[in-house]
């Protein structure tokens, strides 16, 4: 595999079983994403964007085909191995933030580093929260923060483990325009400063346009949108 390829997908097919029978969501997808690239996956609701994102991040197992994340072939790995790979390479930002409600902002950000056994977790988390402008909110719980603030904590958490690839699922979907813009700026700034590969699912065309490439998901097929 070329060293500058972060993600490589070959003949990816994914079928789920529902009450009405088998449903093929992804149909023979092939793609490559290079290191430090920013890629937007766009498409209508139910087209399979989030499913693809989940598979690329190793959150689920595909039905057939191969997904390589650096030298990890997720298709042949078990959950234990995939989790290790996620811990090593991957960061996430979700539409609904997914902060742990029982943890303070600082503790949420410390989690990924703590999982790696990093002794400087707190110091790093404080620096990241400072970067996202929340140094005054360290000990607040998620329900004491606004939506925009919660997403900023989530971004700080995503970068806490210094991931090589950041997956973002509709990161501005639950935010107003002002907060959305703030989040986008943060995301791209951090992406650039840390050299992270960014893979983002979004409905927001403006946001998609800011990415290096746009991939369109339609009826289980993926096509490159020519810019």
């Amino acid at each position, binding site marked *: 595999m070329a060293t500058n390829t972060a993600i490589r997908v070959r003949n990816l097919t994914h079928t789920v079983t529902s009450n009405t029978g088998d449903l093929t969501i992804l149909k023979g997808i092939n793609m490559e994403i290079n290191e430090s690239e920013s890629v937007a996956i766009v498409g209508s609701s139910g087209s399979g964007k989030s499913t693809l994102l989940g598979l690329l991040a190793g*959150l689920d197992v595909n039905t057939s085909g191969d997904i390589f994340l650096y030298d990890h072939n997720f298709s042949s790995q078990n959950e234990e191995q995939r989790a*290790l790979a996620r811990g090593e390479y991957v960061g996430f930002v*979700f539409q609904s933030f997914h902060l742990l409600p*029982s943890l303070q902002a600082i503790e949420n950000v410390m989690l990924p580093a703590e*999982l790696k056994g990093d002794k400087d977790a707190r110091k790093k988390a404080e620096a990241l929260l400072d970067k996202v402008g929340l140094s005054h909110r360290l000990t607040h719980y998620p329900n004491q923060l606004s939506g925009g603030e919660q997403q900023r904590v989530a971004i700080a958490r995503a970068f806490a483990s210094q991931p090589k690839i950041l997956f973002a699922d509709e990161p501005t979907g639950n935010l107003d325009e002002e907060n959305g813009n703030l989040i986008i700026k943060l995301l791209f700034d951090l992406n650039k400063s840390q050299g992270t590969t960014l893979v983002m699912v979004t409905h927001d065309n403006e946001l998609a346009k800011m990415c290096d490439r746009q991939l369109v998901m339609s009826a289980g097929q993926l096509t490159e949108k020519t810019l």
Partner: protein
Amino acid sequence: MSFTFRLMLRDIRSGDLITLLMALIISVSTVTSIGLFIDRLQLSFEQESANLLAADRLIRSDELISDDWKLEAQNLSLEQAERTSFTTMMFAKDSLQLSQISAVSNNYPLRGAYLVDDTLFGTGQSTTDSPKQGEVWVSSRLASLLNIDIGDEVEVGEAKLTVSRYLVRDPGSSTSAFAISPRAVMNIEDLAATNVIIPGSRVRYSLLLAGGRDTLAEYEAWVKPQLEDGQRWQTPAQRGERIGDTIGRAESFLLLAGTLAVVMSGVAMALASARFVKRHLMQVAILKTLGATPKLLTRVFAQQLFALLIVGALIGLGIGWGIQEIIASLLSSLVSSSLPEPSVDRLWLGAATGFISMLVFCLPLMMRLIKISPLSVLQPNAKIEQNTVFVYLIGFVGMYGLMCLYTNGFLLPSIMTVVIAGISLLVAGIGWLAFRLGRSLTSGATSGWQIGLASLYRRLVPNLFQLLVFTLIIMLTLILIGIKSSLIADWQQQLPEDAPNHYLFNVQASQIEQINDETTKLNIQKSDWFPMVRGRVTAVNEDTVQDLYPEERGEPELFERELNLTWSDTIGEGNELVSGDFSAEGLSVEQESAKEAKLSLGDELTINIGGNIVTLPITSIRTVDWGSMQPNFYLILPKSVLEDYPANFVSSLFISDDSAQPFYRVMSKFPTVSILNVGDILKQIQTIIGQLSQAIQLVLLCILSAGALVLLASVRSTLEERLEEGALLRVLGAKSSLVRQALFVEFGALGFFSGLIAAIGAEGCLYGLQVFIFNTEPSFHLSLWLFGPLIGVCVISTIGIFASRTVLKVPPMLLLRGL
């Protein structure tokens, strides 16, 4: 600080682990407190009964007891004492009197105490001393018959002994009704000097033993195979069947109560675990996306559970110990005797309950938690891999195992399991029908009724589960209250305060009138006089007893010895006809003895009465209430058969403490009449019953408190959804009163139906328990049907509304954000 520990501290701060810890503490402390308390009561009953035996165990023998047996007891470090009882003439001045004498060793009694007095016919003070060498203690009756006082000399055989005290009660005295002469106690060292025991004398030798349960059991196993005819191993339980029966029922009750506590603990743990898992599902999925491996998560949760178990078990054991100490001290202020210390080794039961509860209720759910797909963070509605049947099955089997462990048997746990399964079906059926009906009768959301009833049907499965939990707890409460009331009523009915406590024997027909006059003067209540003629059953139909039991072993009691025969025109108080017709001219046999001797109506018994043989067909079989303290007989013969034989008469009387002294003085005018005082045994029974009645009420209180906590936990487990709904309603403009009304309807309906189903279940269970476990008459409990639904509605809606009060007070925005 390890990651596990940091996560745990954060979980503790958020309260999730605390809920689980509380459930564990409730489980461990309830089972511990009840287990320890029951243990103390059992020890106490054993001690009370041991007081009647004067020892923990006793070997009774018609022959001298082998030195080997004493040596073995010594080797096992058992305490031992000796008693030799015989009947002989006691001489004093110019009088002589046949007396029942016990010669005892210096350390007699090993358990209990003598009651002695320095005043003739005094009521006595307790002492654990025994007569010194050269001394004799005589009963006031014997002293008055011999006309002697303290300091006088008496002769027993060739030995001269000095009267040093009046004997009021001998702790190990025989209660055998028909060998009663006035009693005396002397030192066993003086026995040889009397020379009264010669080959062929009727002597009863007793070796008394005391020590730890295990050591006694070891000795029993060693000595029992060596026992020959005429030798018996006696335990306190055998000593007083009435006490044994009473204690047996109380133990059944306490065991049942304890088992119910185990069930409640299980429910509490299951609810808390389910809540913990539910609240952690998303957290684990997020941790997985952040790179937490299943192995790491398994280690984290295993360590958390282990730490929780250690902390919860230690706190639970401590609280359990404290609660039983409080119950015991409450009890000791209510009854005179104090309870023995609890055995520390009983604590394992509480710890095992904690461990098994964790293993069966918590672990399977935790495993499910670890298996959650990290994809749930992207698709919150993604199906969580779950094997619900497996989880329930493990919980059910675990609960059954815990009950078996607790009761040390299978019967009660099996009955309970079947009942719980039956109740589950009933709850599913009735609940589904009622909630569905409620929904179909209402539409719209303009009143609390409509919203409440709609909620019941919408959350059908969780509501049915909650209905089951409520039903079980209310049912268990009703059962315990029902049993408690009927047990206590039964005991009180059996032993009224004026139950006869003395028997008069060997009364001649000519003395009856005089004794009647004297007792009337003293205002003493007395039963009728029953004539008694001695006779022995020698044959059944054509077969002689020797032919039927050639080895003289295993003979039914009816054939074993000479019996007291009587005649009567009526069937007598406490007797009930089972079959045949009772008539003054028939032969009536007591049911249990007839069963033992395999006799039925029409069988002919041949009876030897004073050398004359009579053969009579059995015309009736009746039950006898041996607890009535009235004279009772195995055989009642036709008057025409017995009236020509010389009979003596028996009667029972109630003698109060005040009338005891004058009564004994009067009776000294009738030296041939034997008096048997069973007042001590009765008092002992009444003490135990008093203790038991108080004990089971306190245990009940303890269980009810645990039940209330479980109810609260159950309400809390579904609180979040209700809070969310309430908050939404308030956002949409609903008044607090509407939300409150909806909550009241929902909880009230749950309470009503759980109370109703609980009443059905409790009535059925009480019937089964009364008939099969407690052996009492089954009865219908109207109050259950009234109180069940009433308690259900009041308690559940109060707890529900109390637990949900935040929805009415806190601004809806805060609630919605916090969810």
